[in-house]
C-alpha cells in the first residue's frame, strides 16, 4: 500500500485506473490439474481459457498472478485455508458454494451438449437414441441431464470417469453418443477428436472465479472490472474462439510430434513412478522382514499380529487402501495427508504383506541343521539368524523379491486414482487434452516395459553380485 502511494502519481500519468487495491501485488491462484479447455498443459505450460483469462485480467488491472495447479478439490481446500487467494477452475456457481466463497460475475455460460461419431449419420437427435446406449461423466451435469430424458427417449446411460474414455467408447461403437459439458465437447471437436455435436446446447451452470468469503474483496472487484474490459474490447471472445472454434494448430499432428511434445511430462511421470516404487519397496522390505520374523516367532501374540496384518492386506484390493489413506484417513484425523505419504503407505503395506510371506518361506526353507550348527558353536539366536540363516534365506528369496518389486512398479499406476502424478496418470492428462488415446497409451506402455526390463536386469545383476 505504501509503495502504491509513492508511485501513485506515476500510475495516474500512465492512465492506469485509480487505486484499485491490487495494482503491483501478486496473488496466488489455485486451479485444477487438467480440465481442458479451461486448464491443461501444453508443452509443460499451463494453458486454457481460465489461464488466458486470469492472466489477461491481471495484466489489464496491473497485478500479478502465481498459478498453482493443485487439482479441483485441493484448490478449494487451499482456498478455504487461505493458502491461495482465489480459485479459477471451470467451477460452476452454486448455492452451496456461495455459502463459503464469494464469486465473481459469471465469466462463462456452460451447458450440456450431445455428440456422436463424426461418420455417424443415423443419430441426429434424441429421438434416434431409442434402445441405444449413451455415455456421460460420473456425477456430472451431463449425466444428470441424460438420465432425466433417458426414460422419455428410451435409451440407457452408462457412466464413465473421463472425457477421453467417453469419446473413445463412442468412436469404438460401444456407445452411440456422449453427453458432456458444451465447452469440453466443443474443444474436443476443435481438436479433431473424431466426434461432432448434433444437438443444441442445453443451458447449464455458469462458471465463476472465487475468493474466500469476505476475503480479497479488492481482487474480486478487479476480476469483475477486468472481465468487463476484456468483453468490451473483444479480447474475451478471442480467448474463447482460440479454444472452442478454431482447431488449435499447436496440437501434435504426427506420432513423432506427439512423442516429442508428451515426452517431458511422461518422463516426470516415470520419475515419480520410480521414486514412489523404490521408497515403497524399501519400506515394504522393512515391514516384510519384521512381519516375516514375527510369523516364525514362538510368541503367539507376535505371530497373531503378523498373520492378521498379512491376511488383511492380501485379502483386500490395493486401490481400496489408496482411497482409504488419501480420502478416508484425513476425515478421521482431520489432517490432510500428503499424496506421497498416502501412495507409499498403500504400496508398502500391500507389498509388505507379500514380502512377509516370502521372508517366512525363505527362512523356513533353510535347513534347520544350519541354525543348530551355528547355535552349537555358541552363537546366539540373533547372530545365528543374521550370519547363517538370513543370508541363505535371502538367496532363495531374491527371485521372488525381484518379482514383487516389478509387480509394485506396475501396481503403482493404480495411484492415478488418487491423482498421484505417476506415468499412466501423466498419459491420461495428455490424452485428456489432445484425444490421442491409443498412441499415448502405446507410448506409456513402451515406457513401462522398458522400465520393468531395466529394473529386472539391474536386480538380476545385483543378485549375481551379492548372492554368488
Amino acid at each position: 500500500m505504501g509503495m502504491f502511494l509513492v508511485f501513485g502519481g506515476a500510475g495516474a500519468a500512465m492512465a492506469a485506473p485509480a487505486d484499485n487495491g491490487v495494482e503491483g501485488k501478486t496473488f496466488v491462484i489455485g486451479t485444477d490439474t487438467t480440465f481442458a479447455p479451461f486448464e491443461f498443459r501444453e508443452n509443460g505450460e499451463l494453458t486454457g481459457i481460465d489461464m488466458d483469462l486470469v492472466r489477461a485480467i491481471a495484466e489489464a488491472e496491473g497485478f500479478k498472478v502465481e498459478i498453482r495447479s493443485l487439482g479441483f478439490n485441493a484448490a478449494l481446500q487451499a482456498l478455504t485455508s487461505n493458502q491461495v487467494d482465489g480459485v479459477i477452475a471451470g467451477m460452476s456457481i452454486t448455492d452451496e458454494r456461495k455459502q463459503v466463497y464469494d464469486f465473481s460475475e459469471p465469466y462463462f455460460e456452460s451447458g450440456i451438449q450431445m455428440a456422436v461419431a463424426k461418420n455417424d449419420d443415423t443419430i441426429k437427435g434424441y429421438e434416434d437414441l431409442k434402445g441405444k446406449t449413451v455415455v456421460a461423466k460420473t456425477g456430472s451435469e451431463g449425466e444428470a441431464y441424460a438420465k432425466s430424458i433417458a426414460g422419455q427417449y428410451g435409451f440407457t446411460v452408462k457412466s464413465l470417469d473421463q472425457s477421453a474414455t467417453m469419446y473413445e467408447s463412442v468412436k469404438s461403437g460401444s456407445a452411440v453418443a456422449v453427453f458432456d459439458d458444451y465447452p469440453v465437447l466443443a474443444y474436443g471437436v476443435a481438436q479433431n477428436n473424431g466426434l461432432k455435436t448434433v444437438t443444441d446446447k442445453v443451458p447449464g451452470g455458469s462458471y465463476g472465479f472465487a475468493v474466500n468469503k469476505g476475503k480479497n474483496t479488492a481482487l474480486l472487484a478487479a476480476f469483475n472490472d477486468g472481465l468487463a474490459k476484456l468483453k468490451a474490447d473483444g479480447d474475451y471472445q478471442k480467448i474463447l474462439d482460440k479454444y472452442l472454434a478454431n482447431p488449435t494448430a499447436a496440437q501434435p499432428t504426427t506420432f513423432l510430434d506427439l512423442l516429442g511434445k508428451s515426452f517431458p511430462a511422461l518422463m516426470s511421470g516415470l520419475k515419480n513412478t520410480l521414486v514412489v516404487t523404490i521408497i515403497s519397496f524399501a519400506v515394504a522390505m522393512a515391514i516384510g522382514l519384521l512381519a516375516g520374523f514375527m510369523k516364525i516367532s514362538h510368541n503367539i501374540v507376535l505371530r497373531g499380529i503378523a498373520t492378521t496384518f498379512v491376511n488383511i492386506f492380501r485379502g483386500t484390493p490395493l486401490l481400496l487402501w489408496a482411497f482409504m489413506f488419501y480420502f478416508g484417513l484425513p476425515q478421521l484425523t482431520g489432517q490432510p495427508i500428503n499424496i506421497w505419504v498416502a501412495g507409499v503407505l498403500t504400496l508398502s503395506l500391500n507389498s509388505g504383506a507379500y514380502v512377509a510371506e516370502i521372508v517366512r518361506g525363505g527362512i523356513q526353507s533353510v535347513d534347520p541343521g544350519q541354525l543348530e550348527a551355528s547355535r552349537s558353536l555358541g552363537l546366539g539366536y540373533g547372530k545365528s539368524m543374521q550370519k547363517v540363516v538370513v543370508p541363505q534365506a535371502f538367496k532363495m528369496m531374491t527371485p521372488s523379491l525381484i518379482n514383487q518389486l516389478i509387480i509394485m512398479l506396475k501396481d503403482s499406476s493404480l495411484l492415478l486414482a488418487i491423482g498421484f502424478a505417476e506415468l499412466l496418470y501423466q498419459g491420461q492428462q495428455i490424452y485428456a487434452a489432445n484425444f490421442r488415446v491409443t498412441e499415448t497409451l502405446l507410448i506409456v506402455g513402451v515406457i513401462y516395459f522398458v522400465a520393468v526390463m531395466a529394473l529386472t536386469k539391474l536386480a538380476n545383476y545385483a543378485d549375481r553380485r551379492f548372492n554368488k
Partner: protein
Amino acid sequence: MSASPVETQKPAKITVKGLRKSFGANEVLKGIDVEIAEGEVVCVIGPSGSGKSTLLRCLNKLEEISAGHVIVDGFDVTDPKVDINEVRRHVGMVFQHFNLFPHMSVAENIMLAPVELKKATRVEARAQAMKLLERVGLKEKADARPASLSGGQKQRVAIARALAMNPGIMLFDEATSALDPEMVGEVLQVIRDLAAEGMTMVLVTHEMGFAKEIGDRVVFMADGVVCESGPPAELFGNPQQDRTKEFLSKVL
C-alpha cells in the same frame, strides 16, 4: 589312551542325572544317569529310535530338557541362569549331515565363531583356521566353497569348525553314517587323533569296530534308558543283558 581305574577319580566333565525328555506325549529319554570323566571317550550305541541323538543334543541343550540335570564343565545347563551360549563354546558338536554353512568358504566356516564372539581378530582367526585345517589335512581347501568338497572332506571341515573355540568336549552324532565307505577312514583317523590328544568325547556311532577300538567305555541304549555300559571288551565280549545280546547279534 584308555583311562585307567585310578584316573577315573578325576572330576566328572559331564554329569547326567535323571534326565528325561519328552516330545509331546512321547517320552524319549526315561531317566538317564551317566558320568563322563575328563579325557574319557564314550561311545553310545543302540537301536534306531532308542534316543541316542536326543541324549547327545540334551548335553548342549539343542533340545529342551524335560526333567533332571545335565552338568557340563561345572555348569548346570538346565539352570535358566546359566548362559547356554557360554557352555556351548566349551562343547564342539559334529553332525551326521555336516551342516557346513554353504554361503561361506571353508576358512570362513571355521572363523565364524571366534570372530563373531570376539575371541580373535579376523587375522588371528584365519591363522587359527589354517592350523585346524592342517590338522585335518585340508589346508589347501581353505578358500573353497563347501559344495566343492567330498563328503569326507566336508566332515573334516566340520570337525575343524567345532574345534575353533578350543572346546574341552566334543560330541559326534553318527559322524560317518552319511559317508561313502571309502571316506569313512579319513574321518575316523581325525577322531582317533583327537582321542590321542586327550579330548573328552561322546560319540554316537553305528561303527561297532571303531567303538571297540576307540572307546574307553561303551553305553548301550534301548527304549530311552541306558541298558548296559562298560569297557568295550566287556560289553562286546560278555554282554549281560538280553537286550544287549539281541542287538549285538544283529549288528556284529
